[in-house]
């Protein structure tokens, strides 16, 4: 039966978090039940104050085959990292 239900990716915003974070996936017949199932599966221990459910099939993902052209060019561009600046002590943690 679970095979007939689409897969949903679940994102939860925690009490203290700034953004929703991916926590896992589950099966559900529709969006409403995906939210309810996420509530029961992923917020049992007070983990969240907001839930997003996205049907997994709707997510556009990059292909592992393209990792060469996609990611390697940035490996050699160290000047893009802001690591050449001295941070004043009184700026605190960045």
């Amino acid at each position, binding site marked *: *039966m*679970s095979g007939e*239900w689409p897969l949903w990716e679940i994102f939860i915003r925690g009490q203290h978090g700034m953004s929703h974070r991916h926590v896992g996936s*589950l*099966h*559900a*017949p529709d969006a*409403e*039940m995906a939210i*309810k*199932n996420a*509530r*029961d*599966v992923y917020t*049992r221990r007070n983990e969240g104050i907001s839930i997003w459910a996205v049907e997994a099939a709707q997510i556009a993902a990059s292909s592992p085959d393209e990792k060469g052209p996609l990611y390697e060019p940035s490996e050699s561009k160290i000047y893009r990292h802001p690591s050449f600046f001295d941070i004043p002590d009184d700026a605190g943690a960045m």
Partner: protein
Amino acid sequence: MSADLFEFLCRMGDNALVLGHRVSEWCGVAPVIEEDIALANTALDLIGQATLWLNYAAEVEGKGRSADDLAMGRDVWDFRNLLLVEQPNGDFGQTIMRQFLFDAWHVDCLGALAQSNDRRIAEIAGKAVKEATYHLERSSDTVIGLGDGTDESHRRMQAALDLLWPYAGEAFAPDAVDAALLEAGIAPDPARLQATTFATYDRVLGAATLIRPDTEFAHRGGKTGARHSEHLGHLLTTMQWLQRAYPGATW
């Protein structure tokens, strides 16, 4: 009054305890893992509520018994739960229909009890009604999904409704205990809850394309303890086994 109050608290506590145990029987064997976890959450909510009601019942009784003594040390005739909640799980549809029929009443009852003159009751109900509201949302959606689903799921949900409907009416039948608590402003008149709860029944069953049986007949005897169904004894045998074999065991 304290005898009536004790009786009433046992009714609330035993409903939650017996249904909580019933629902927990699905743990590990539900049709899909998401439902398995959701049902276990519901069972835990209900057993938590039972603890609150029975703790208070034990205090009101004042005979040195604890909530655990009440839950694990009484036999069938001392239980005060509605006949509905002791009915067997049957198939998944039957479990969900039982849950829905109970949840709809439970939300209305707890909502009224949250306004009780008795501060402890108002506090327990105020906490429990949030859990019950979620239970009702979930069971309503599932009743609608399965009722208005495939031919097979529709057939099973209608069969579950036909089977369980005669157990739905007991919750709305007042007796002397209810009258005494109504008089004292502690609990609502059960009969007065019927209109609201039936409106929920009709809204959800309508959306589920299910036909509510056209009968007012209701089995009675659970909430008074006079006539439980044969199923409660079997449930207690499992639930109370450890405390019966090893009285007072703790871990």
